[in-house]
């Protein structure tokens, strides 16, 4: 597989010039400079806290969205744009915004208020140690698998840029990330993520502008897509039958709203520690609640510069046209190559260097988030709370260092698993259906139902995961006639339903925790006053109200859906 890719992608090679490399080098200089300054100025936790405290909430919000705006998101969503057209916007508008708003308004008071440092630790408080440990292990495995996808994505970029085969590019890329995380450290992460956000935009905006220019503007794109193999259907978001592969439009809409919009996206955004970690570090409850909602504004607008270039790739580039006509890989080129091919064909030297820097930035955003949250959960929830409790601080610090190295090495292995996937986004959605949907099921049940027991939590978690894996296997061996895409929707829904069902049954036969222990962890046992926040000082002003911002971003999404109906 990899050797085929390596040969075929020789014509994907970017013609980068000295100026381009200079621009990339300058970006790396800034990233490493931020890391260096963080090391120098953060010598105590107070410094650490203060640098966080001096940050306004919109910066935390951008870091929140940037942690999600990884290379796999870019490459995968552009691939989806090329393959499915406008319907890809569902991943953003129904698949992210409502969940982000829900996280900010409903769940953040519990997360932030419980003072838990990680999602597994929250589970230990609400349920029991067993649930914490099982979720800790599942999260560690998931992080490494997803870090592998990011690594594979960076391998593709280095291959395109330098012409190295993937077998060389992937280990080298892992070393680059290791160096970056070692030098920059977690304390510099938020700064780098915000910087990455802007550089990624400096990649996407010119790509979209030039692309539209080449196809004759929006009208030219509409004309060409209509004439293409996908037809006019790819110009409308609803009912998205091609995306879900559910022929009946009504069922397709239900599939999108429940499968993608509810189970997959709520599972991802509200329980994925790599995301929640950003909001937990905010300076106040108000800022923590605003973090995901502020992040929702750029998230709502990003598909305009991701999905549209993907659609342009499918009508403008002969290679992607061939892939689309054949309905699969042609000469080793897949939809995943859309982004790099577009950069090669559309961007002259100069802006090409900025674009390469943006792509590398996107990669670092994704993988650094995976590795750092893996590191936290492994060291804290697994090693300290379980395997080797009661050691000195220095000891756990050493463990944390080694875990970072081991995490990067393991990610090299999982990168090669990812390289076998046709469409990276299908692969990642399948992973989310295994790991996030069952977690969300027990999370939401535990939040609203005080009867739910600890035993029910981990049994529900495991049976949900088994259900999702079972669906994936049925799809893989063609027992269920679904595409990978639709398979992960069904798998996530199955995981959620099985998780909730099993947890409810087990709870009824067990003894719930005493209510006094559940204050601040269960909705009905938490007084309204501790679910709200102060609006004084830096949190004052009507424009800092989480509710108002939430309403505004929901209106924005409705308007966008009306435009791209």
């Amino acid at each position, binding site marked *: 597989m990899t050797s085929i890719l390596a040969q075929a992608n020789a014509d994907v090679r970017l013609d980068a010039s000295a*100026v381009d490399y*200079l*621009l990339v080098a*300058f*970006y790396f200089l*800034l990233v490493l*400079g931020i890391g260096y300054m963080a*090391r*120098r*100025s*953060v010598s*105590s*936790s*107070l*410094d*650490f*806290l*203060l*640098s966080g*405290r*001096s*940050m306004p909430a919109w*910066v935390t919000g951008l870091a929140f969205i940037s942690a999600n705006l990884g290379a796999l998101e870019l490459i995968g969503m552009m691939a989806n744009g090329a393959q499915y057209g406008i319907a890809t916007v569902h991943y953003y508008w129904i698949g992210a915004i409502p969940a982000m708003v829900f996280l900010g308004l409903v769940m953040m008071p519990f997360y932030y208020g419980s*003072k838990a*440092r*990680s999602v597994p630790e929250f589970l230990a408080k609400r349920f029991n140690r067993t649930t914490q440990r099982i979720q800790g292990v599942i999260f560690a495995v998931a992080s490494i698998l997803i870090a592998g996808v990011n690594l594979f994505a960076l391998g593709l970029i280095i291959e395109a840029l330098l012409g190295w085969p993937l077998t060389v590019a992937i280990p080298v890329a892992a070393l680059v990330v290791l160096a970056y*995380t*070692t030098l*920059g*450290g*977690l*304390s510099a992460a938020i*700064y780098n993520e915000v*910087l990455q956000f*802007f550089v990624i935009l*400096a990649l996407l*905006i*010119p790509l979209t*502008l*030039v692309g539209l*220019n*080449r196809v004759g503007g929006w009208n030219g794109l509409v004309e060409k897509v209509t004439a293409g193999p996908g037809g006019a259907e790819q110009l409308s978001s609803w009912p998205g039958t091609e995306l879900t592969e559910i022929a009946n439009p009504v069922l397709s809409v239900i599939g999108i709203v429940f499968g993608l919009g509810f189970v997959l996206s709520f599972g991802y955004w509200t329980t994925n520690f790599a995301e929640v970690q*950003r909001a*937990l570090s905010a300076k106040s409850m108000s800022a923590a609640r605003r973090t995901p909602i502020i992040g929702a504004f750029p998230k709502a607008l990003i598909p305009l510069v991701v999905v549209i270039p993907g659609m342009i790739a499918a009508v403008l580039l002969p290679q992607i046209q061939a892939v689309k006509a054949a309905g699969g890989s042609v000469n080793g080129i897949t939809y995943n190559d859309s982004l790099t091919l577009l950069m090669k*064909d559309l961007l*002259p*030297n*100069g*802006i090409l260097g*900025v674009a390469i820097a943006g792509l590398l930035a996107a990669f670092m955003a994704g993988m650094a988030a995976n590795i*750092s949250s893996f*590191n*936290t959960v492994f*060291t804290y929830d697994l090693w*300290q709370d379980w395997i080797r409790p009661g050691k000195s*601080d220095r000891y756990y*610090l050493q463990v*944390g*260092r080694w875990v*970072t190295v081991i995490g990067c090495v393991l990610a090299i292995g999982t990168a090669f698993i990812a390289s076998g996937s046709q469409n990276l986004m299908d692969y990642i959605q399948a992973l989310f259906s295994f790991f996030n949907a069952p977690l969300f099921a027990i999370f939401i049940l535990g939040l609203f139902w005080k009867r739910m027991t600890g035993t029910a939590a981990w049994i529900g978690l495991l049976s949900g995961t088994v259900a999702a894996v079972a669906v994936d296997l049925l799809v893989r061996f063609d027992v269920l006639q679904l595409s990978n895409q639709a398979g992960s929707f069904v798998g996530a829904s199955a995981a959620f339903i099985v998780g909730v069902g099993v947890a409810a049954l087990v709870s009824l036969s067990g003894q719930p925790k005493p209510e006094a222990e559940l204050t601040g962890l269960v909705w009905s046992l938490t007084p309204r006053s501790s679910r709200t926040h102060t609006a004084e000082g830096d949190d004052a002003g009507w424009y800092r109200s989480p509710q108002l911002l939430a309403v505004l971003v929901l209106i924005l999404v409705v308007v966008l859906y009306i435009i791209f109906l």
Partner: protein
Amino acid sequence: MTDSSEGHNPAGTGPADAMQTGTDAPPSAAANLFDLRTIIALLFLVYGLVLLIMGLVSTDAADLAKTGGSNINLDMGIGMLVVSLLFGLWVVLRPLKPPTAEQLAEAASDDRPPGH
């Protein structure tokens, strides 16, 4: 690495440490160096200038064929300089305030871990 481990190290780097090292330390210059807006302004200043020059002196027919006739380097260069200027203005008009003694005390007594 030291930094990354601090973030999730539950004891030792917590409030007690902060109390010892923090309250009487001068408001450090590092806090100002660390104004992210300056770094964003610097990034786009350099990128904007390079692209502007590229757009003015080295745009040839092959480049124009790629872009469908528009001088993207020039356009983006100007755009980035504007972004840089806006961030620069923001830094000048609303400088980062050094933390007050009150905030320092509050930070020290805060029992939230310095987690990320």
